[in-house]
C-alpha cells in the first residue's frame, strides 16, 4: 500500500457492488424513448400476420372459406390448420405434456381460439383480411365450471384417446387431466379426525391474467439464402424457444437465432409458446419474407396465459390452544381447453405443495385434480413461482379461518406455529427442505412497526361505534406471513421440456480491465444489466460501471432457462458469482507470477491481489487483465474468460411479513388502504433500490388481483373482461404508498446468499389485502368470501351479513 492507493473504503465504494443502490444503466435508453421492443423491429419487406379467432367457446368448425380474404388488397396468404398439417404444425406440444391446436383443427374449445392466420402487407390489410374470412361454426354445449366438467357426458378433447393415461398418469374422466398428490393422506385424515378443533373452508383463487403493458409478439425472418431463421419475440426463455422451434420445424438449432429484445413486462405471460409465434415462423418460411405478429390487448387477455383458477378445499386441525396438527387440501384446478401450464415437467401443480407455508405442520396432504373446460389455456406463474401464490393464499386464509374457529388472535396463532429459527434447514411434511429463515424476528418487527396492539384496540372501538350507528366504516387488519419457494431449480428434479433448469454466465475481461458478461436469463424490467454487474463487481473487483451485461440473444449468450419464478438471482446470479470466482482463481495465478511469489502468497483485497504481509506489493485486476493478454505466463493460457453453468443444490425460500390496514365503507363497498407495511427477507440484498421497486410493483399487482382484477366468463364462455375497461389495472389514483422494511437471512447454499424477491410481494400481498377485507367483517361473522373484492362484492358481503339494516 502506498500513498497513491485509495482507501479500502473508497475502493469498495468505487465498485458499486453488492448492497449498493446503484442507479440503473437501462434507464438512459428507456427514458429517451430508445428502448427496442419487438414492435420496434422493422425489416425491409416485412409482412404482418393477424388471427381470425373463434367467437364461440365450443363449436365444430364446419368450413373455412378464404376466397374473399385473398381478394383483399394487400393480403398474401391465409393459413389454416390444413396448411399446417403437412408440416405437422397444426398442433404443438405444451410445456405441461399436453398438446394444443395452433390453428383450429375441426373444432374450437375456447372463445378467442386461433382459427386462421392472415398474412398481409401491413397491419390494416391483415385486419381487413381477417374480417373477410368466412368460418362456418356449429355450436356445441359449453362447460365453464370445472366441477360440472367432471360429471358431464360432453367430451371436450375428442383428440385424446378415451381411457388412455395423460402426461401425469391416469385420467379418471374424459375431461380430467391428472390427479397429482403429495403427502400422507391417511395420516393426515387421522390427525384431523382426532383433533380438538378443525376448520374447513373452500378457498377460491379466481382466474386472472398477468397483463404486462406490452402484449406478446414476434418477428420471424427466414433467410432462404443462408438457411438461417431469426426470431425476435417476447420470450422470457429465449433459449428454450430456440430448442422448441428447432424440434418443431426441423431446422437445425445452429440455424435458428432467437432474440428477446427489450421486453415490456412479462410477469409469466411470456413464458409459454403461443400459436402466434408458430404462425409467424411458418408464414416467414412460406413467403420468404419477415413476418410480424403482435397481439392486441383483447387477444392478450382472451388467449395467452391466464393464471390461477384454483378451487382449494381445505381442512386444518389444531389443539384447543392453537397448535396446528394437520393440513388437508384438495384442489380442483381449471386448466382450460389445453393443459398449457408453465411448470417444471414433474410438477403439474407447480410447487403448490409449499402450502404448509411458514408453519411447522406435522402432517399434511395435497391432491390436485386438473380439469379441462371451455376456457383459454395457460396456468402461468403470474409474478410467482409455479402456483406458490395459490399456496400462500390458501394457507394464509386457512390460518385466519382457524383463528376464527379457535377464537384466537390471528397474529398469535401464526407466531405459535412458525417454524423456529433453530429448525432450519427444515423439511416440511410435503417434502420441501427450507434453506433458512427467522420468522419470529420478522413477525415481531412487523407487529411492532405498525403498533399491532394499538390497531386491534382501534378496531374494537370502531366495531362498537359502528354498532352504535356512529360510523359506517369498518377497519380491517390484514396479516400475512408467507414463505416462497423460488429459484427452480435443481436439475435432478426440475426441467422444462427436458431441459434441466440450470442457468449460466459467461464472462470476458477485456485487456484494459473492463468486462462483458452474458447470461442465459432475460430481463423484463428487473434491471439485470444493473444488478448482475453488481454481483460481478464484488467478485472480481472491476467497477459495475465497467461491466456490460448482455442477455437474450441465443447466438451470443450461453444456454439458460430464462427469467420467471424469481429464478434469475438464485440461479443465474449464482452462475455469475461462480464464473467470477473462476476469473479470480486465474487472476491469482497471474498476480503471483507478476509479483514473483507463490500462488498461495497472495490474497484478494477488494480489487487486487496483494502479497501477504507486504500490502505495498500488489496487482490490481486491471493490471492482471492486461498481463493476461500481453505476457507469456508459463502454464497459463492467454486471456481472461470464464463460464459457469450453475445447477443449484436446492431452491431458495424468501419470506416476509405484510400488514395491510384497510378502511371499508359498508354502504358503497369502497375501500381505502390506510397503511401497508411490507417486510421482506430475500437473503443478501444486491440493490436495495431495485428491491424496493420490485416490492412496490408486486404489491400493486397483488392489489389489483385481490381487489378487482379477474378473467370472468359468462355461462356460454364469453370473456366478460377482455379490455382494460373491464379488466382492472390500478392507476396511480387507486394505488397507495407502501412502507418497506427488511430482515436479512442469507441462503446458506447460494454463493452470495441471495434468495430472489421479485415475486414475494405478489405472493404475500394478495392474502394481506384479502385478509384485511375478511378481518373487517370478522366481528360480524364473515368466514370466507371470494376474491376479487371489488366494490360490488364487498357491498354484497356487508349486505349478506345484514349490515345494511
Amino acid at each position, binding site marked *: 500500500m502506498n500513498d497513491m492507493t485509495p482507501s479500502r473504503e473508497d475502493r469498495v465504494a468505487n465498485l458499486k457492488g453488492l448492497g449498493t443502490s446503484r442507479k440503473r444503466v437501462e434507464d438512459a435508453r*428507456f427514458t429517451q*424513448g430508445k*428502448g427496442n421492443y419487438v414492435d420496434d423491429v422493422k425489416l425491409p419487406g416485412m409482412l404482418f400476420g393477424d388471427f381470425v379467432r373463434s367467437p364461440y367457446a365450443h363449436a365444430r368448425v364446419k368450413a373455412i372459406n378464404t376466397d374473399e380474404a385473398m381478394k383483399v388488397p394487400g393480403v398474401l396468404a391465409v393459413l389454416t390448420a390444413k396448411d399446417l398439417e403437412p408440416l405437422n404444425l397444426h398442433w404443438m406440444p405444451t410445456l405441461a405434456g399436453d398438446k394444443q391446436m395452433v390453428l383450429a383443427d375441426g373444432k374450437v374449445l375456447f372463445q378467442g381460439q386461433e382459427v386462421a392466420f392472415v398474412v398481409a402487407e401491413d397491419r390494416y390489410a391483415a385486419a381487413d383480411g381477417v374480417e373477410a374470412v368466412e368460418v362456418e361454426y356449429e355450436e356445441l354445449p359449453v362447460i365453464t365450471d370445472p366441477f360440472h366438467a367432471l360429471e358431464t357426458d360432453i367430451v371436450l378433447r375428442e383428440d385424446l384417446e378415451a381411457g388412455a393415461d395423460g402426461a401425469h398418469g391416469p385420467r379418471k374422466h374424459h375431461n380430467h387431466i391428472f390427479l397429482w398428490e403429495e403427502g400422507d393422506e391417511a395420516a393426515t385424515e387421522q390427525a384431523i379426525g382426532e383433533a380438538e378443533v378443525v376448520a374447513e373452508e373452500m378457498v377460491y383463487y379466481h382466474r386472472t391474467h398477468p397483463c404486462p403493458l406490452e402484449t406478446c409478439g414476434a418477428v420471424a425472418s427466414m433467410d432462404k439464402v443462408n438457411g438461417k431463421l431469426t426470431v425476435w419475440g417476447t420470450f422470457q426463455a429465449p433459449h428454450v424457444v430456440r430448442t422448441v422451434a428447432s424440434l418443431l420445424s426441423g431446422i437445425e438449432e445452429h440455424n435458428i437465432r432467437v432474440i428477446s429484445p427489450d421486453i415490456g413486462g412479462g410477469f409469466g405471460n411470456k413464458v409459454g409458446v403461443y400459436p402466434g409465434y408458430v404462425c409467424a415462423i411458418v408464414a416467414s418460411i412460406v413467403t420468404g419474407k419477415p413476418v410480424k405478429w403482435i397481439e392486441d390487448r383483447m387477444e392478450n387477455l382472451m388467449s395467452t396465459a391466464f393464471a390461477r383458477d384454483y378451487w382449494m378445499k381445505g381442512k386444518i386441525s389444531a389443539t384447543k390452544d392453537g397448535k396446528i396438527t394437520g393440513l388437508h387440501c384438495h384442489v380442483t384446478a381449471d386448466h382450460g381447453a389445453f393443459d398449457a401450464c408453465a411448470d417444471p415437467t414433474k410438477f403439474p401443480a407447480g410447487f403448490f405443495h409449499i402450502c404448509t407455508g411458514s408453519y411447522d405442520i406435522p402432517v399434511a396432504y395435497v391432491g390436485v385434480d386438473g380439469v379441462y373446460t371451455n376456457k383459454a389455456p395457460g396456468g402461468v406463474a403470474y409474478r410467482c413461482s409455479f402456483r406458490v401464490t395459490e399456496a400462500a393464499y390458501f394457507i394464509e386464509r386457512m390460518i385466519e379461518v382457524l383463528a376464527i374457529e379457535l377464537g384466537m388472535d390471528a397474529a398469535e396463532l401464526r407466531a405459535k406455529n412458525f417454524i423456529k429459527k433453530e429448525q432450519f434447514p427444515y423439511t416440511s411434511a410435503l417434502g420441501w427442505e427450507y434453506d433458512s429463515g427467522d420468522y419470529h424476528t420478522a413477525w415481531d418487527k412487523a407487529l411492532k412497526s405498525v403498533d399491532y396492539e394499538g390497531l386491534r384496540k382501534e378496531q374494537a372501538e370502531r366495531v362498537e361505534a359502528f354498532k352504535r350507528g356512529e360510523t359506517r366504516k369498518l377497519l380491517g387488519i390484514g396479516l400475512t406471513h408467507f414463505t416462497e419457494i423460488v429459484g427452480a431449480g435443481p436439475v435432478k428434479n426440475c426441467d422444462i421440456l427436458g431441459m434441466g433448469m440450470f442457468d449460466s454466465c459467461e464472462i470476458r475481461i477485456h485487456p484494459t480491465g473492463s468486462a462483458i458478461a452474458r447470461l442465459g436469463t432475460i430481463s423484463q424490467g428487473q434491471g439485470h444489466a444493473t444488478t448482475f454487474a453488481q454481483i460481478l463487481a464484488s467478485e472480481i473487483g472491476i467497477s459495475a460501471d465497467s461491466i456490460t451485461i448482455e442477455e437474450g440473444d441465443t447466438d451470443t449468450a450461453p444456454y439458460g432457462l430464462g427469467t420467471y419464478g424469481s429464478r434469475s438471482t438464485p440461479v443465474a446470479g449464482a452462475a455469475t458469482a461462480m464464473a467470477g470466482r473462476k476469473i479470480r482463481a486465474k487472476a491469482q495465478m497471474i498476480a503471483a507470477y507478476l509479483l514473483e511469489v507463490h500462488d498461495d502468497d497472495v490474497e484478494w483485497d477488494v480489487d487486487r491481489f496483494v502479497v501477504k504481509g507486504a500490502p505495498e506489493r500488489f496487482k490490481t485486476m486491471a493490471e492482471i487483465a492486461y498481463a493476461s493478454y500481453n505476457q507469456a505466463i508459463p502454464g497459463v493460457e492467454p486471456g481472461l474468460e470464464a463460464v459457469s453453468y450453475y445447477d443449484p443444490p436446492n431452491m431458495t425460500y424468501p419470506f416476509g411479513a405484510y400488514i395491510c390496514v384497510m378502511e371499508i365503507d359498508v354502504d358503497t363497498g369502497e375501500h381505502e388502504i390506510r397503511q401497508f407495511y411490507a417486510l421482506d427477507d430475500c437473503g443478501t440484498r444486491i440493490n436495495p433500490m431495485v428491491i*424496493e*421497486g420490485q416490492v412496490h410493483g408486486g404489491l*400493486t399487482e397483488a392489489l389489483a388481483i385481490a381487489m378487482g382484477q379477474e378473467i370472468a366468463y359468462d355461462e356460454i364462455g364469453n370473456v366478460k373482461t377482455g*379490455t*382494460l375497461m373491464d379488466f382492472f389495472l390500478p392507476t396511480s389514483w387507486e394505488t397507495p404508498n407502501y412502507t418497506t422494511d427488511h430482515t436479512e437471512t442469507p441462503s446458506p447454499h447460494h454463493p452470495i446468499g441471495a434468495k430472489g424477491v421479485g415475486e414475494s410481494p405478489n405472493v404475500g400481498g394478495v392474502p394481506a389485502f384479502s385478509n384485511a377485507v375478511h378481518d373487517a367483517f370478522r366481528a360480524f361473522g364473515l368466514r370466507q368470501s371470494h376474491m376479487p373484492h371489488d366494490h360490488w362484492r364487498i357491498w354484497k358481503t356487508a349486505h349478506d351479513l345484514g349490515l345494511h339494516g
Partner: protein
Amino acid sequence: MAKTHITLTVNGEAKELLVDPRELLIHTLREQLDVTGPHIGCETSHCGACTVDIDGKSVKSCTLFSVQANGADITTIEGLGTPDELHVLQQAFREHHGLQCGYCTPGMITRAHRLLQENPNPTEEEVRFGMAGNLCRCTGYQNIVKSIMAAAAEMNAAQEAAE
C-alpha cells in the same frame, strides 16, 4: 384506399406525408416516421403508453386518426431532451427509480411534462390524479410520483434562480 395529404410538426421538424384516412396517429408516428418512443399498450385509450403532446395537450395517439392531427404540433418523448441534455423529468425518473421495464415510460414522462406545465407546483394528490390516465404494471407508481415531485421541485428552483 385513397391517401390523404397531411402536414405535421413532430419534435420541431416539419413533416409532409400521405396517410390512409383510417390510419391511427400512433401508427403514422411509429411506422412512417420511425418515432418509436410512444408505444401501443391497449388501443382503447386506457393505458397511456402512446401518450404524445399535441398543441399543448396530452393526447393518446392510439385513438386519434392521423388526418385529425393535420397541421398539429406534436411533441413525443424524443423531443423532450437530448442525450447530452436530458430533460429534468428524464433525469428524475432515473434518479428515483421511476421505471422498470420502460414500456410505459415515454408516455408517462410525456404526460408528466404536460402536467407540470399545467400545474408547476402540484401536491402528491394532484400528481396522482393528473397521472391516472397512464398505467404502469411494474413500479406501483410510488417512485413515479416521487420522480415527478422531485422534477417539479427542481424545475421550480431553476425558475426561481433565473428570476
